């Protein structure tokens, strides 16, 4: 009590007078730091804004046409305007979905193991270390690895599914790490509350821990997916471009947005260049939509206090 009543005096004595020269010096430093931070922010924003503006200006007119979203490039040449990116959008989405279907269970199971079971075990530390290495593997190396496995070792043809396998290598560490972070955020008290009710550990994980972390896990998956959709290197190695609509993952070629950009980029004429900008803008739109979906899910299914 007595300490509380004395505190105001002490505070007044300890604080310097607001108008002393020392505080002027601090204000100058504050200004300088503020200006520096803003300058850095603006400099960092320039390329981003530039890219978006350039894409909108050069690709906007391509993307607004309805046939862009419904037609493929089948039979199109560098001299025939028209056609669309439907085949590439379908290819990108299909490969992304298959990649996710394989990656997500693997990643979530790994994260559950690492956080709920293997925290202080030797094997857990080894898995975690491997995951760090996998995170650092360049995408072209992932592509080459699958090529060596799929084509060189097994003697199989390059097919879209092989692309998915390479993308799985890139997606698993990302989703595992984000899921781990979300599981760590679940307070231990909730696990204990569940155990204290006589609920088994596995049941606690599936019924208490995962639902509590759900929105965060979904957000992580969507962000990981958005990243994987823009990957190009494994596609260049494993997924030759096709101008036609293809949905068979196990034979033939399949067009995707990154390989469409790469294929059309080789031409110098104006028509393919439009397609490059259009495909680039389309890819960015898809990625942005996924990001947006991730954030919306995070916002609206977040646990309400």
């Amino acid at each position, binding site marked *: 009590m007595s300490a509380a009543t004395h505190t105001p005096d002490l505070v007044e004595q300890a604080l310097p007078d607001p108008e002393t020269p020392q505080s002027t010096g601090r204000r100058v430093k504050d200004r300088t730091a503020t200006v520096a931070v803003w300058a850095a922010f603006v400099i960092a924003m320039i390329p981003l804004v530039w890219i978006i503006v350039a894409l909108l200006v050069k690709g906007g007119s391509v993307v607004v046409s309805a046939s862009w979203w419904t037609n493929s490039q089948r039979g199109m040449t560098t001299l025939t305007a028209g056609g669309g990116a439907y085949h590439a959008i379908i290819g990108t989405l299909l490969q992304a979905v298959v990649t996710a279907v394989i990656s997500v269970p693997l990643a979530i199971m790994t994260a559950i193991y690492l956080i709920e079971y293997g925290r202080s075990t030797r094997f857990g530390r080894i898995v975690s270390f491997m995951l760090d290495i996998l995170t650092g593997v360049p995408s072209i190396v992932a592509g080459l690895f699958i090529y060596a496995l799929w084509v060189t070792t097994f003697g199989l043809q390059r097919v879209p599914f092989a692309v998915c396998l390479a993308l799985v290598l890139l997606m698993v560490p990302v989703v595992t790490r984000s899921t781990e972070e979300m599981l760590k955020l679940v307070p231990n008290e*909730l*696990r204990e*509350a569940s155990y*204290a009710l006589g609920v088994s550990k596995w049941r606690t994980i599936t*019924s208490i821990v995962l639902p509590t972390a759900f929105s965060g896990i979904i957000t992580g998956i969507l962000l990981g997916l958005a990243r994987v959709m823009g990957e190009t290197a494994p596609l260049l190695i494993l997924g030759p471009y096709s101008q036609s609509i293809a949905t068979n993952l196990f034979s033939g070629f399949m067009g995707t947005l990154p390989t469409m950009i790469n294929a059309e980029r080789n031409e110098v004429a104006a028509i393919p260049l439009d397609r490059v900008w259009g495909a680039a803008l389309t890819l960015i739109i898809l990625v942005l939509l996924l990001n947006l979906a991730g954030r919306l899910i995070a916002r609206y299914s977040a*646990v309400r206090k």
Partner: protein
Amino acid sequence: MAKRIDVKDLNVYYSSFKAVEDVTMTVEPRSVTAFIGPSGCGKSTFLRTLNRMHEVIPGARVEGSVMLDDLDLYAKGVDPVSVRRSVGMVFQRPNPFPTMSIYDNVIAGLRLNGVKGRKDLDEAVETSLKGANLWNEVKDRLKKPGAGLSGGQQQRLCIARAIAVRPQVLLMDEPCSALDPISTLAIEDLVNELKSDFTIVIVTHNMQQAARVSDRTAFFNLAATGKPGRLVEIGDTQKIFNNPIERATEDYISGRFG
């Protein structure tokens, strides 16, 4: 329903650190036993060994025996999960499941153990919430999230959740220390009512609370930090507070240390 607990020569370790040493005591059924003592003397640690909750802490282990009537909790083949169904626990900070409604919180234990029938669940919700003196406050908003209640209500919700699985013993680890005085009184009243059905053990750092709610009191102490905590004495609350045998108990209760 209520059962007696017999603890014999119990030591508790965190890896190589001995946290609690040589505890022997009996907890009587249908009564409230309070654990008091300075913080760090191992009250929580010991409490958790009564339903094997210490086993979720890596490195924690126990020597000695704990009997629940004639079941040895640490015998080979006894499943800790089923032990916790008979010996429930309420924690210091209210911890309702944030993704669940009030209704789902109460029956979480039942549902996660496979009880399905709608009628049974509805009944369990009403009985348990009434048992926890919460029914009148929440009966119109059972579908609302449990996290939206006040701290005191959340703690009573946690008690309702704990008694919904019909345990024989209820362990409470400082259940009021995060609550305001009014909510604290509500919980104390509740403890008084619950003792007709359950064996209750309550850890508290509040001496008046121990005196108000408990029939028997156990005083724990430790010789020095880093030394294991020990049970100094246990007896009728009246006796412990008015006429303790040990000097240390008297010092602690009269506020001379701790």
